[in-house]
């Protein structure tokens, strides 16, 4: 893992008596694509604003490259931000927009011209120098906002839901563009989004946040496959979260039926939550299933069918490429390694997890 670039230490922030961040700790490494993921109001944007210098934490410190920058104004920080609604300067041409930061740094005209050409090439908008921002589409404006930020050669690029205003197709294209740019530039990206698919697609590290606390930090795979609590499991993708009892290592009782699993170390007869992803629920003939149920709903989703199966008093969400019509009796099977066991949360607010990522 690369060297640490940013450390957020014990950051707390409240607005009008409402706690937004509570003793948040986070380390970000050089050349990492970190995504802060969570529902609105979880504190992810506030975290980004504190990094950019647009909000001051009530408590705690921001360390950047070994230096305390907690009280340094945004114009003195070595990072640049791409804002949600582009925030281009509408009274300037594209070239003037991109040159804005370089002119302040008193760079030479030839240097600035080279940079503009390079940046427009990077975002695939060569030849747009003399256009005005209003004459560009949303996706193009967002690329210009990125170009305007990266010409300053920041060590970190902060992106605040940059694709939020774009339509689905464009958003997917821009996701690939961003990954390409990050690899070409070799700088750290800190990306804020509420879109779990975006987070899983692009990130090296995902930080799942809720109510001002970090819920889980990990690679996209580990966040998806091994959610640490019900919030993460529910927020990342669809899932069946079922109350259960851990009978002993590698054996769990779900809705009164024993299932084999692979988790250990939860103790004996402990109440737990289990997460089973809908694509991991296998529908078979009733006689072959571990438990039996009846299909109650069916929707065609394109890639697969989505079904709801009533079994043992629980509505199971199932995704399958095989069709089982409504009213059909089915059996349910789950492979042991697809049963994810989680501790039950002790309180509403999960304790903040202090983790090194």
């Amino acid at each position: 893992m690369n060297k640490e670039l940013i450390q957020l230490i014990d950051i707390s922030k409240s607005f009008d008596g409402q706690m937004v961040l509570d003793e948040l700790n986070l380390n970000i490494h050089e050349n990492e694509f970190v995504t802060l993921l969570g529902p609105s109001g979880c504190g992810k944007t506030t975290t980004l604003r504190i990094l950019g210098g647009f909000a001051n934490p009530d408590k705690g410190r921001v360390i950047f490259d070994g230096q305390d920058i907690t009280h340094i104004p945004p114009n003195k920080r070595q990072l640049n931000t791409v804002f949600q609604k582009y925030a281009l300067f509408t009274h300037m041409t594209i070239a003037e927009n991109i040159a804005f930061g370089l002119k302040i740094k008193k760079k030479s005209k030839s240097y600035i011209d080279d940079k503009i050409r390079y940046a427009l090439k990077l975002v695939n908008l060569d030849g747009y120098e003399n256009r005005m921002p209003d004459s560009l589409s949303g996706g193009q404006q967002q690329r210009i906002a990125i170009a305007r930020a990266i010409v300053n050669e920041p060590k970190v690029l902060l992106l605040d839901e940059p694709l939020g205003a774009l339509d689905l197709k464009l958003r997917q294209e821009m996701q690939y563009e961003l990954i390409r740019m990050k690899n070409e530039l070799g700088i750290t990206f800190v990306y804020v989004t509420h879109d779990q698919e975006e987070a899983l697609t692009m990130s090296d590290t995902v930080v799942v946040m809720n109510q001002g606390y970090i819920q889980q930090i990990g690679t996209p795979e580990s966040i998806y496959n091994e959610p640490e609590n019900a919030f993460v499991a529910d927020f990342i993708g669809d899932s069946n979260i079922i109350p259960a009892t851990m009978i002993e290592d590698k054996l769990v009782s779900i809705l009164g039926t024993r299932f084999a699993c692979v988790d250990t170390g939860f103790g004996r007869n402990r109440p737990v939550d289990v997460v089973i992803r809908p694509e991991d629920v296998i529908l078979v003939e009733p006689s072959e299933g571990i438990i039996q149920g009846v299909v109650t709903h069916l929707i065609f989703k394109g890639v697969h069918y989505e079904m709801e199966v009533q079994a043992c008093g629980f509505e199971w969400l199932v995704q399958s490429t095989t069709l089982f019509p409504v009213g059909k009796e089915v059996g349910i099977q789950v492979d042991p390694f697809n049963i994810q066991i989680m501790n039950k949360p002790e309180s509403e607010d999960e304790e903040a997890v202090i983790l090194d990522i």
Partner: protein
Amino acid sequence: MTSKSKWLSAPYLFWSAVFIIIPLCMVFYYGLTDKTGAFTLDNILAITSAGHAKALRLALLLSFTSTIVCFLLAYPLAMILANMKVKRHNFIILIFILPMWMNFLLRTLAWQTLLEKNGVINHVLSFFHLPALQIINTPAAIILGMVYNFLPFMVLPLYNALAKIDPNVINAARDLGANHFYTFIRIILPLSIPGIISGITMVFIPALTTFVISSLLGGGKLLLIGDVIEQEFTRMSNWHLGSGLSMVLMIFIVINMILSAVFDKEGEGSML
């Protein structure tokens, strides 16, 4: 629009024909004719006579000065208002609009009473053994009256323009390395130009044409072009000369309107 709903505008069309278009035609007719009804440009060229030119110069000077003063007072205020939270700024804006609900004549008469030699202000000053203020019947009093009466017309368009600027645009400038001053000069000021132009128009035109403020606070000694025109109509009964001078004044107003149409494409001033 359906043909039926077009008729809804009939009352207004009637109103504007009777009270705007016909009077305007009459001004043009009187302005371009003499007492015998023959065509002449004398009424318009009369602006070059010493007395009229002096009144026009004074009117331009005073209205220009009060526009500048209004701008300098209003801009910082509008910036503060634009940055305020929604709940509070409505109240503050109300305070600024409140005087506009009182009669214009009453407000100006009140200033006359306040500024008089034996007026309220001088009573207060003498109570504290301070020298008396002698600005009534001077250009300063007229500027004071203009600024007081027209300030809200500067504040509101400026506020509208500034409130429209996305805070993230300002954040972006700071993010790219601009300090507060550079951000103001390169971002905030240029983006508020439509509001500046509307504000200037809405203060400059009424200030240029006023005759009430100058006759009440100028004591009838300082004649602005508005006073001259008023006197031609009321005292001299020379509608021809009055109309001719009005047409000259209209040229300045049209120039100002054209400028504001060019810069204020988004209609910042349209709310008034």
